[in-house]
């Protein structure tokens, strides 16, 4: 941890970065992610949330502007080196051939040529993602929720021994029941904060974003329309984002929760 002092202030920075998908242009996006930050990306369907995440993950090339990870252009990073610093948890995801679960988790570390603690790390990552009981099974026999845990364990294994890395998450919990959602979100946040990893996550559930994330990035029509600390997000901002009337209430802990307001939608 002696290197803490000279760590970059910005983990990831986009400067007027654009992406072309077919003829459609997304962006320009200008934003920066600091180490250890927990950021949610919100926006209506088709707004470009996944595109932004793919840009951050280097899955899509930058068409214009710059994208830098740790002060180095994202596309100059050798892939194996980059994979030790940032991981992506996909939305939901099949694995061909019915590989065994521990192999799928271990694949998070496939870029390391020498990895003496692999088995140990796979065990621990599985435990941390509440997936230890799935070890030994075939991936293609798992339920949706179990697959999500295994992929989470794979991502944990990937960043297990890294510090101040980046965890990109694409609507991880959308299809899961509420109890499991809570459990896994908690596991993810604990994992990230223990190691100082930043989390950037696409979310569909506004309340989850409001409760669990410190900063919200709002995306609409393929561009960035807002970037706020969660405390500063107001109801009208969210209504404008989703073009729907919302009502809000305060929880006992003083946090805002929102829900579509049925009455006003009907009246309108």
């Amino acid at each position, binding site marked *: 941890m002696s290197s803490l002092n000279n760590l970059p202030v910005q983990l990831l920075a986009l400067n007027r970065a654009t992406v072309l998908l077919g003829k459609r242009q997304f962006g320009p996006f200008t934003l920066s992610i600091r180490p250890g930050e927990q950021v949610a990306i919100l926006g209506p369907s088709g707004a470009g949330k996944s595109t932004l995440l793919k840009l951050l993950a280097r899955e899509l090339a930058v068409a214009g502007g710059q994208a830098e990870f740790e002060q180095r252009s994202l596309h100059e990073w050798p892939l194996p080196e980059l994979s030790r610093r940032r991981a992506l948890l996909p939305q939901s995801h099949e694995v061909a*051939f019915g590989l065994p679960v521990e192999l799928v988790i271990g694949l998070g570390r496939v870029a390391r040529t020498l990895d003496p603690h692999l088995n140990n790390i796979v065990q621990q990552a599985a435990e941390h993602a509440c997936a230890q009981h799935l070890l030994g099974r075939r991936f293609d026999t798992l339920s949706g929720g179990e697959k999500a845990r295994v992929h989470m364990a794979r991502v944990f294994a990937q960043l297990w021994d890294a510090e101040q890395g980046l965890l990109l998450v694409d609507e991880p919990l959308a299809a899961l029941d509420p109890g499991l959602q809570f459990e896994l979100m908690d596991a993810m946040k604990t994992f990230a904060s223990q190691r100082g990893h930043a989390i950037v996550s696409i979310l569909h559930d506004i309340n989850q974003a409001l409760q669990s994330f410190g900063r919200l990035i709002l995306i609409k029509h393929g561009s960035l329309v807002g970037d706020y600390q969660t405390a500063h997000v107001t109801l009208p901002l969210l209504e404008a984002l989703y073009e729907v009337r919302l009502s809000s209430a305060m929880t006992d802990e003083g946090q805002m929760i929102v829900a579509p307001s049925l009455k006003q939608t009907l009246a309108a």
Partner: protein
Amino acid sequence: MLWQTMMTFLISTPSRVAKSMPLFLKQLSSKPAWLCWLILGLGVWAAATMGAVTMTGQDWLAPLQQDGEPLSGSAYVLWHLRLPRILFAVLVGGALALSGALTQGLFRNPLADPGLLGVTSGAACAAALTIVLLSGSGIEIPSALRYWLLPATAFAGAVTVCFILDSVARWLTADSIAGLLLTGIALNALAAAVIGLCTYLATDEQLRNLSFWTLGSLAGANWTLTGVLLLALIMVFCYLRRLTHVMNALALGEAAAAHVGVNVRALRIRVIMLVALLCGFAVAWCGMIGFIGLVAPHIVRLLIGPDQRRLAPLAMLVGAILLLLADTAARTIAIPAEIPVGIFTALLGAPFFLVLLARMRRGV
């Protein structure tokens, strides 16, 4: 890019051979592997005793007893015809099975097979064109060169087909095996048409050569080819150590493989070159022998699961057993005549493929 990958492949191979030797032995000495070795050993012994000429125990020891005199009679048959052919069948079977295992890993699908996808017919097509065009143009080729000319052109044909398939596979929706197999059908038809055209243009002597390509036969075996193939396979095998581990990541899909740090593009090119190399050699020397690449990896997957690191070496052993059995049957069923071995593998392999299809449909 392609050239660069080829060069790094060539340069880095010797050091990899040295480093991965323990693993090479480890993978081939697991319990299921011992079973395969046992069957293979029995198969080799049985195949050596079967055939038009009957062998005695004396013949096995003949090279030790005869002081410098050339072998004769049944000893000659054993040591100069039968044994090289048996070992050649073993090695070609291994090469075909490995190319099948790699193709399936590359396309993330257990139904992908170099034969079905048109890779072997692409290689055969290139070889057939070489035979007809070269002798048609009247250029005299030294026979020493001929060994290498056909593998080289067959390799070129296989590479071409592989890259066409690869670009089609990316252009189609991800993981669409239907699209891939349909492309294979089109490429197979195209290759068949070109081979047909060659047949039409060919002289009688070339015609015999051509039917050899299309049906597949191991009759051309000799010690030189066997030795070369053995060396090539050992080098490829050692190179597999790292490659198969990384290939497991392809099962996650291309995007996710890139996220865990795999350079997918370079990996695809490497795998394609290997598949083309293996198919090119096999086709150039033995013609089109189908279905080994489909059946062998599948049997192994049922036995020990789909981990490429364990699958590839064992699939080679199983492929070796399968082709040895098929070739022995082809040699001995209609003594003194010989049935092309490709007919046997197709007779066994095609129903197997249908069963596989049915199982996939049921989602097993």
